């Protein structure tokens, strides 16, 4: 094995380890998505195909009632697109880190990007903890997340009839996101951005296709950026003191 291969494998394994704490959330979310698809009316083989090919819990759950209601194809796909709009923001944020790779590799890494893997990547990037072979590291992160999600989704699909809905297992997914975002709330612009994003998302939650989420994200990012640029422009405290 060449030294390069050894380094890339080490980066891959390091990524696999980095995602482990989030895997419980991913497993719970996958389980819930699997259960919901069958309980929502999809036959087992279709539910399996959906979780394998679509691999996006929120879009799958949003599309479900439309499928069962027999909505036209374009309405269902449009719902999927709009529910997935946040991934456009994610892919723009990751672009600078992967711009040097060939298109095929960028496409592969993009397909396996989720809320969990993206947030973990950005946090490591901002803390300067990414290894040199960050694409191999991210591939390791995504591999473990994908395997975990697929196993738990399949389990959920097969065992749907035994899981009571009152357990609220899907809340584990929300809590895992809380744990992911919590450590990033240390700066004032980030805190302000989160507050604005939450408020706008709450006010706009009545909009169809989860558009409230998208509006909230955009408003939050704008608020955080403005706060950040004001902070940069302000004279340093040391001068006045």
């Amino acid at each position, binding site marked *: 094995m060449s030294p390069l291969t050894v380094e890339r494998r080490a980066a891959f394994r390091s990524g696999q380890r980095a995602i482990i*704490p*989030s895997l419980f959330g991913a497993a719970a979310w996958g389980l819930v998505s699997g259960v919901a698809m069958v309980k929502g009316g*999809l036959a087992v083989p*279709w539910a399996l195909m*959906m979780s394998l*090919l*679509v*691999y996006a819990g929120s*879009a*799958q759950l949003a*599309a479900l009632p439309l*499928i*069962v209601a*027999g909505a036209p*194809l374009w309405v269902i*796909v449009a719902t*999927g*697109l709009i529910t*997935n*709009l*946040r991934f*456009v*923001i994610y892919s*723009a*944020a*990751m*672009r600078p880190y*992967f711009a040097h790779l060939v298109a095929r590799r*960028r*496409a592969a890494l*993009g397909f396996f990007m989720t*809320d969990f893997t993206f*947030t973990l990547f950005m*946090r490591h990037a901002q803390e300067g903890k990414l290894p040199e072979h960050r694409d191999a590291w991210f591939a390791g992160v995504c591999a473990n997340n994908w395997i975990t999600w697929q196993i738990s989704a399949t389990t959920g699909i097969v065992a749907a009839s035994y899981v009571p809905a009152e357990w*609220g297992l899907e*809340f*584990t997914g*929300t*809590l895992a*996101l*809380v*744990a*992911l*975002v*919590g*450590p990033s709330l240390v700066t004032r612009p980030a805190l302000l*951005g*989160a*507050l604005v*994003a939450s408020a*706008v*998302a*709450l006010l706009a*939650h009545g909009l169809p296709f989860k558009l409230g*989420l998208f509006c909230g*994200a955009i408003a*939050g990012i*704008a608020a955080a*950026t403005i706060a*950040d640029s004001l902070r940069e422009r302000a004279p340093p405290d040391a001068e006045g003191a």
Partner: protein
Amino acid sequence: MTAPVSGIALAAVILGLALSTFVTRTSFLLAGAKLRLGHRVEMALRFAPVCTLAAIIVPDILIHAPGRVLDLSLVNPRLIGALAAGLWLCWSRNIIGCLSTGMAAYTLARLCL
């Protein structure tokens, strides 16, 4: 119960949804080489994770699925669970502990309140 939809229609729906995931997730990553975002936009995107997740999490906690009404009351089990998880995070970064604490508080609140 099975969806009253034909196999071909379902296959088309699933492929369409798969495409919607792929297109959104790879959009800027694939446009990468030809597209320059500029320093300001790249600085703004540092806040993307925090803001997007907040916009997912907070409505998830405060808006109840049946009826979709805002529930700011302190007996909202999801709010109690999330607050417990947040308190845990102030003390430790351990995600498993955070999930267990949050789910325990949520389940207790759901059963008792």
